[in-house]
């Protein structure tokens, strides 16, 4: 039920953290991570996930395959 950040791509720019409506993004060792328990894929807030909208690196904020999609949990 969440997005995740591909660590090897992360520039550490923090742009996603500023935009996340759920406060789900945190920093560790100059890279950023998404707490899957907090992420709602921006459903209920925006049409598109904000982290992926502003991320400067392509295909870096992506669906986390290890957890079920958020919508399915509703």
């Amino acid at each position, binding site marked *: 039920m969440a997005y995740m950040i591909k660590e090897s791509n992360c*520039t550490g*720019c923090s*742009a996603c953290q500023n935009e996340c409506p759920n406060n789900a993004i945190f920093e560790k060792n100059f890279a950023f991570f998404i707490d899957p328990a907090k992420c709602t894929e921006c459903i209920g807030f925006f049409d598109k996930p904000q982290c992926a909208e*502003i991320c400067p*690196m392509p295909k870096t904020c992506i669906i986390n395959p290890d957890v079920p999609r958020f919508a399915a949990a509703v």
Partner: protein
Amino acid sequence: MEFGTRKAVAELYVMQPSVPGSGKMGCASKSSSGKSSCGSAAGQGDLSSEIWEKVKNHPCYSEEAHHHYARMHVAVAPACNIQCNYCNRKYDCSNESRPGVVSERLTPEQAAKKVLAVASNIPQMTVLGIAGPGDPLANPGKTFKTFELVTKAAPDIKLCLSTNGLMLPDYVDRIQALNIDHVTITINMIDPETGAKIYPWIYYNKKRYEGVEAARILSERQLLGLEMLTARGILCKVNSVMIPGINDHHLADVNRAVKSRGAFLHNIMPLISAPEHGTVFGLAGMRGPTAQELKALQDSCEGEMNMMRHCRQCRADAVGLLGEDRSNEFTTEKVMEMEVNYDLQLRQAYQDDVEKRRTAVVAARNEELKTLVGRDSGISILIAVATKGNGRINQHFGHAKEFQVYEVSTAGAKFVGHRRVDNYCQGGFGEEESLETVLRAINDCVAVFISRIGNCPREGLLRAGIEPVDRFALEYIEQSALAYFREYLERMQSGEIQHIQRGDADIRQGALVTI
């Protein structure tokens, strides 16, 4: 730590807002020397007194000040809200020098401490800029918090910021309230079709826009922000990246558009597109302009407004004079251990001394200029100069990391640019190649002024048709350039030399290597 004993040319952004109602851009206003010096940018020139007061100690807004005053950037703003095809945020190594990359990010509190530490150690540091490494206004909390802390602790330091302009209209009031009196906006186009080739997307109002629509929104926001700032009397400089094949011809339109909206200075910079930086333009094999292509564009816009030619395209964490980078002396680790002794009186005394030196430079120049009165040769020459600052020829050929280029004619000596070169004296290997680099960088110059030079490079320069000149060692640059030009004319008349038009020169692209 040295206390200002070391001077080098610093890179500064000079920006100047237009003063509403004055509209002064002409050449007739009084200058400090009593002589109109349109376009020379040496001294007050054609700036109104109000603007001159704001920019005279700002190395990034005044070419003349950049020989004497230093600036620093603090990297508190990592996030960005647009994507530019000449920027890649991923790559950063300590040897690399270009906008958009930094080695470490600071919190506002760390940044304020760093500013005090630098101000204590470099008394000629007069300007704090926030320029990224992302966009300051995409990180408004951190940016404005930093300015607030610095204003409280070091009220004499001028504040400036550099932005892509997307969020600028929203923050104009805040900028004014914080007394930020210099703002630089990077404007590469006013035509959205052109913009779509430069900006793949922007993030605005919680949504990603692409293509022409993105460029249209960005352009509207940039021009609106510029108008709002200049209406409030805040000095605005416009930066443009010259991208051959995309906006090189269009930048003349940009120049007119920003001038009409009150920008006081236009800084056209060459595209940096080394493939190893991994930018879209770099990977596509696009080239930057040659030195003469850049100069021709700058010259063509100069009739319209003041042009800035001393920008070194520095990093968002640069410290020192333009052209030098002392950021390694002020890493967070070192700064946190530094004893800070911010002495306003000491700084003022030092800066008073700088003022005396500046006045002497201008006086010497004007004295020399008198010897050319009445002569009209119709020719101009370019001279490369090795300098560590203070307006003097005071650097060994082999120690120069860059050469400043002056255009000299009977009208005067005018700074027209700088050319980066790798250190010629590095480790004693590859000397031949290093000399080749220098020759390519100053190939359009007839002479190079240095304090000293070895026999080997001297002969190499002569073979390339560039005269190495060390007899003006430690003298003032402009005065010496005018004296050389007078002799040049005399040697031409006597038939000793023939004036030939020199070729083009390279703008160096690779990573800056510091030892």
